[in-house]
């Protein structure tokens, strides 16, 4: 019988990989999740703790998928602390995905926003010229640099890192690097996922130069299916209309990059 994607499926964590002191990747077997498109997400249930939306990370093995989580609040810390052999629930996949252009591509990921970018890399063509930008606070928080390089070993490519404190790679915000690169050359496609201000600046930099740009948005999410309304951004619902939106569309959204909604649904400024 075909799986009902709204019904929670239980999977067992098979491997836990420490990416940084605060970031871990949890690997599990699931055919459906191993095949999701970049930008799609799952609702992940940590029994007894919470449920949260997560982008699905790729692995090297067929039939396997992963979640890469940074410990932050109670829910993400609960997921971070899951050990090998423990079970979690998943439903989905939900949401739309990036439209992959061909040619010169720029992928920008901040923190765990790199996850959909890594999945996007598995769709690039050998003829694409790919630049990946990784933004992190400090050297300790850099991850997926090697993974990105290995994914692109058959492509003309660059993987650049910027850290806020300059302890590794370029010093400064990753958006400064974006601004510099889009000023120097034209990209056929720009893709971004990370903190919203980072996405906002990246979208502005690329869209103002008439480049095709898409961002995968993140919002407080309860249902994941377009019922609860908590993930609305203007008139868009991240779970159903997104997570991926075009720069053209986002430029006319009054809330993107400016406001978010708290747990009670009150609009607050970034």
């Amino acid at each position, binding site marked *: 019988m075909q799986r*009902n*994607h*709204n*019904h*929670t499926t*239980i999977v067992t964590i098979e491997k836990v990989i420490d990416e940084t002191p605060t970031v871990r990747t949890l690997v599990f077997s699931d055919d459906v999740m191993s095949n999701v498109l970049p930008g799609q997400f799952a*609702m992940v*249930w940590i*029994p*007894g703790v*919470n*449920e*949260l939306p997560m982008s699905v990370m790729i692995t090297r093995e067929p039939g396997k998928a992963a979640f890469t989580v940074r410990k932050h609040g*109670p*829910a993400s810390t609960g997921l971070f602390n899951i050990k090998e052999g423990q*079970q979690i*629930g998943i*439903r989905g996949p939900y949401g739309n995905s990036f439209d992959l252009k061909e040619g010169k591509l720029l992928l920008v990921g901040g923190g765990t926003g790199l996850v959909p970018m890594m999945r996007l890399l598995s769709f690039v063509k050998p003829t694409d010229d790919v630049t990946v930008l990784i933004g992190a606070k400090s050297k300790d928080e850099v991850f997926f640099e090697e993974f990105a390089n290995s994914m692109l070993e058959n492509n003309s490519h660059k993987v650049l890192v910027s850290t806020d404190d300059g302890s590794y790679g370029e010093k400064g915000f990753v958006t400064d690097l974006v601004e510099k690169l889009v000023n120097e050359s034209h990209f056929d496609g720009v893709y971004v996922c990370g903190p919203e201000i980072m996405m906002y600046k990246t979208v502005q930099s690329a869209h103002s130069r008439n480049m095709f740009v898409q961002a995968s948005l993140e919002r407080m999410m*309860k*249902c*994941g*299916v*377009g*019922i*609860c*309304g*908590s993930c*609305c951004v*203007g*008139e868009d*619902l991240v779970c*159903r209309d997104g997570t991926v939106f075009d720069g053209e569309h986002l430029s006319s959204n009054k809330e993107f990059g400016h406001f978010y*909604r*708290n*747990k*009670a*649904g*009150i*609009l607050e400024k970034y």
Partner: protein
Amino acid sequence: MNQLLYSKPSSLFKVETSLATSIGQIQLDRPVMLASGILGISLDVFNRLYRSGAGAVVTKSLSTEPWEGYPNPTIFGVKGGGWINAVGLSNPGAPNFAKMIEPNQDVPIVVSLVGSIPEDFEFMIKQFENCKVTAYELNLSCPHVAKVGLEVGDDPELVRKIVTTSKNSTDVPIIAKVGLGTTHYLNTVGTAIDSGIDAITAINTVRAMAIDVETQRPILSNKFGGLSGTPIKPIALRCVYEISSKYDIPIIGCGGVSTWEDAVEFFLAGASAIQLGSAVGDNWINVFGEINNGILEYMKRKNYSSIKEMVGLAKKS
């Protein structure tokens, strides 16, 4: 034939008069409303729903203060269809919400209110004095939050006081949303009518739960939630039929409507309009236009010129 009638993305479409309906004093251009608790926290989203064919939108149930609701999981997809939710009435609070909808002119907004005592409702109605409100809907039936909703609806004396106070606070029509609790809902309806209510919405979600067999735990953080969607439609339909058989009061049918046939069934049982929520999770926002178009086609086929002609027809047979 009317495939594109409700799909224009950015402009208000021309209203088909034959879909107009009245629920007592409440006039709507179309009979399919968004139920409370669904997508209800942004005026931009309300506008979009209206453009998509919703006859009115009912807001999330508002409380006197902002509520965060329960932690996740707050929703569970039932294998055979339908949802169990315990979002926990998360909402920005009536004062914040009133400020947000103040600019609204176009969208018929029904403000849903939840509270424990008559003064809560009086306070909240006052917040909306400068807003264009089509009606208020008193939530007497949420099955998963203590001291409000169903716990209020199960107390006839409290229902009497809340309806009386709310009626005295405004000239805008007031609807009572009833559900299945420990007090027979028909008695709650009777009390609300005696106290001057203008219309009834029936029903709310039905108290339910889900347990995961692998981890052997209840899935929802609140353990219990409300079952909605197609599994409860036959129950809701029965309630509408019973209410309309016993009382002369305008009724809004709510519970598991996902197709135009479901909507028509509710009209035939005695409802003048319907509300839907779960169907949005299944078919997204297009569901309003699809159901409106289906009702229109049915009316043409059966030679009805108004919704009113269908209301309660099933009782004649």
